[in-house]
């Protein structure tokens, strides 16, 4: 195989790079690889910004499906004023509220950037920790509740309903402090 860069020498170095699940291959001769800065550093560091911005544009809906007469209202963050369009241009959020404002559009982006993941599985800040644990517990109980209703185990379902109410009441209480 000939080198991709110079098309002259034999390609002796073969690279596979996986970016967000997409496979890229490169075949270079040693000299060209050296020109590229020992090959790998450049290979890895080519602007993550370019990559991201390309990706974000890619994710924008190509509004061909619904030919509505009204132009869709542009998505803009109430807190910082950043629009979704601008977000896709700069590849950066403007504030923490942007995450909520653009939330419906973020899963595909995160999936690509973080190897298919969309959900945090790490640390929870200490102060918020208790509240979030209760929320997770309520979520879990709700799923159980649905299962019991489906299988018509109403006694158990009622017990779970009361437990959920109790937890929710306590949580609201806590917030009022």
């Amino acid at each position: 195989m000939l080198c991709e860069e110079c098309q002259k020498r034999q390609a002796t170095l073969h690279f596979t790079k996986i970016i967000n699940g997409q496979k890229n291959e490169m075949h270079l001769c040693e000299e060209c690889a050296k020109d590229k800065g020992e090959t790998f550093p450049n290979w890895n560091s080519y602007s993550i910004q370019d990559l991201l911005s390309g990706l974000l544009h890619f994710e924008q809906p190509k509004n061909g499906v619904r030919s509505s007469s009204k132009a869709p209202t542009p998505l803009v963050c109430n807190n910082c004023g950043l629009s979704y369009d601008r977000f896709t241009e700069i590849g950066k959020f403007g504030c923490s509220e942007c995450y909520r404002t653009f939330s419906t559009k973020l899963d595909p982006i995160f999936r690509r950037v973080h190897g298919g993941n969309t959900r945090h599985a790490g640390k929870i800040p200490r102060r918020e920790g208790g509240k979030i644990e209760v929320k997770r517990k309520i979520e879990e109980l709700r799923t159980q509740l649905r299962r019991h209703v489906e299988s018509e185990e109403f006694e158990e379902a009622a017990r779970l309903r009361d437990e959920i109410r109790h937890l929710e009441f306590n949580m609201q209480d806590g917030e009022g402090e």
Partner: protein
Amino acid sequence: MSLERFISQAISPWMKSGPDPDGDIVISTRIRLARNLEHYPFPIIASEESSQTLLHYVSRELAQRKYDSIGALELIKMDDLSPNEKRMLVEKHLISPYLADKSKHGAVLLNENESVSIMINEEDHIRLQCLFRGFQLSEGLVLSNGLDDWIEEKVTYAFDEYRGYLTSCPTNVGTGMRASVMMHLPALVMTKQLNRILPAINQLGLVVRGIYGEGSETLGNLFQISNQMTLGKSEEDMVEDLRGVVMQLIQQERAAREKLLRASRIQMEDKVYRSFGILANSRVMDSKEAAKRLSDVRLGIDMDLIQGVSGNILNELMILTQPGFLQQYAESTLAPNERDIRRAALIRERLMLENE
């Protein structure tokens, strides 16, 4: 200023002493956490006024307190520094180029031995970084975690239970953590094995970067391995993945060194002593050559081919011979060709100190 005094200012105390596990291959370990405050616009779009308010608020909350073992934190504002002073902090890896040149009301809190740096108004409101000598990922995780809790006692982080810590760039969301290990891998480069290993590392969601000098070339066979993804796994799991890969690289680098020594000991001795001779005698040296020669000498020291020279010399001179420090030592602005002359002189002087 004497060279000894200059070095004592230029090289962070954390680099010079303390435990140094696997120090023959791992230069340093770094854990960085990106954090933001709720509601405040992120620095990239924040107004002057908002950035100023945030800096005032965060620095007031943190600067007066002490966290355990790390000692008091000193606040350094970017606006109070000269361009060259900022450049030196970048060359010491204590601040980012972004904080130095592009931030509005950027500042950094540094502890005394410079192992902890908390940047304010970088790309995120808070960028916390802990540096360790050698291979110390667990220690790094414990300290960064503790410092993070300590900061959180005073400020409310932007956090979402579904997305995790909210960051300015989508690539940092979740844990906001970047763990990285800086490695010296000359034997894997020499035997051309690194090129083969690299794709596998990428597939594990880790990134390998060369260390850059003035241009874009890799310098001194130094490579930084870090986690690419920040979402979907716990901090501990991310660090474990990284640890596994680093341990393998350490093993393979050691094996490659032994093989080189067995197969071509005299050629290896010749290579490292030749570089030593060039460093000790040159009159003009660009950064690229300096890095290459220093890497050879460091390898010679770690393989016991060269005796009586401290292994710290590579790390020290890699920092000292960068433009910011050369200019500081020369006490003037230097054109690139003048830098090369100064660089050669500084390296000669430094090696002389070693012989005293």
